[in-house]
């Protein structure tokens, strides 16, 4: 029961803050509501009993990406101009609503094979076995490491003063 209430609160706050991100004209306020939206997604992970993912979400998104975005907004000094919509506003709205309708229709009409087993908790050690253990995702972990290295180097090269 408590899980239900938590889900509804988190869902309403998350959708409201996501709408604020795309509708507010002040870019800085939009970034702040993005932070709140990412925090509610972390709460959604908690209701899905994904404790490790919730912690990672707070660390990477709220701690890292949000700070990066706010820094970029301050470096580009376009807060006063706001974030106006372009000419495609009405078609974009129609496309989004159509997409939501089609996906919602498909979701509600699919007979999902929902399992009744209880979720694993805590998930941290099971995730570590999955990532690094035998028959796990160790190759993908190595590729992710080199991708991050390439991204860091690329970002440094791009922003460096000539």
């Amino acid at each position, binding site marked *: 029961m408590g899980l*239900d209430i938590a889900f509804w609160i988190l869902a309403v706050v*998350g*959708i409201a803050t*996501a*709408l604020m*991100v*795309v509708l507010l004209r002040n870019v800085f306020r939009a970034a702040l509501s993005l932070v709140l939206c*990412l925090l509610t997604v972390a709460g*959604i*992970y908690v*209701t*899905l*009993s994904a404790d*490790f*993912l919730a912690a*990672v*979400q707070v660390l*990477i*998104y709220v701690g890292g*990406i949000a700070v*990066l*975005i706010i*820094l*970029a*907004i301050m*470096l580009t000094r*376009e807060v006063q*101009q706001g*974030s*106006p*919509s372009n000419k495609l506003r009405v*078609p*974009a*709205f129609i496309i*989004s*609503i159509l*997409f*939501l309708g089609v*996906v*919602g229709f498909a*979701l*509600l009409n699919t007979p*999902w094979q*929902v*399992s009744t*087993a*209880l*979720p*694993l908790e805590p998930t941290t050690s*099971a*995730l570590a076995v*999955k*990532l690094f253990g035998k028959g796990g*995702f160790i190759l993908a972990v190595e590729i*992710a490491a080199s991708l*991050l290295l390439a*991204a860091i180097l690329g*970002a440094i090269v*791009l*922003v460096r003063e000539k």
Partner: protein
Amino acid sequence: MSIGLEHYLILSAILFSIGLYGVLAKRNAIVILMSIEIMLNAVNITMVAFSRYIVPSLLTGQVFAIFIMVVAAAEAAVGLAIIIAIYRSRETIESIKFDLMKW
């Protein structure tokens, strides 16, 4: 009625649609990147919800969500670096004025 798989899927579909609208309708390149982050988070919610309700003991969806987060972090870093580099040379971050590759 208690919370089930469909609730999470509908929530993530709504978040994805909001992000899609932001990507299509906004002019500010940083707001477009923020909308892309919302879309990636919606996909992550879907992954974790499937992992929780379809195969609760396997955790494969959570592993996928971790990799999506890695790629999202790399994308945000490189995307914001590109935007700052364009702002240096063009003094604007309006996406309709990014026409360096147009001839």
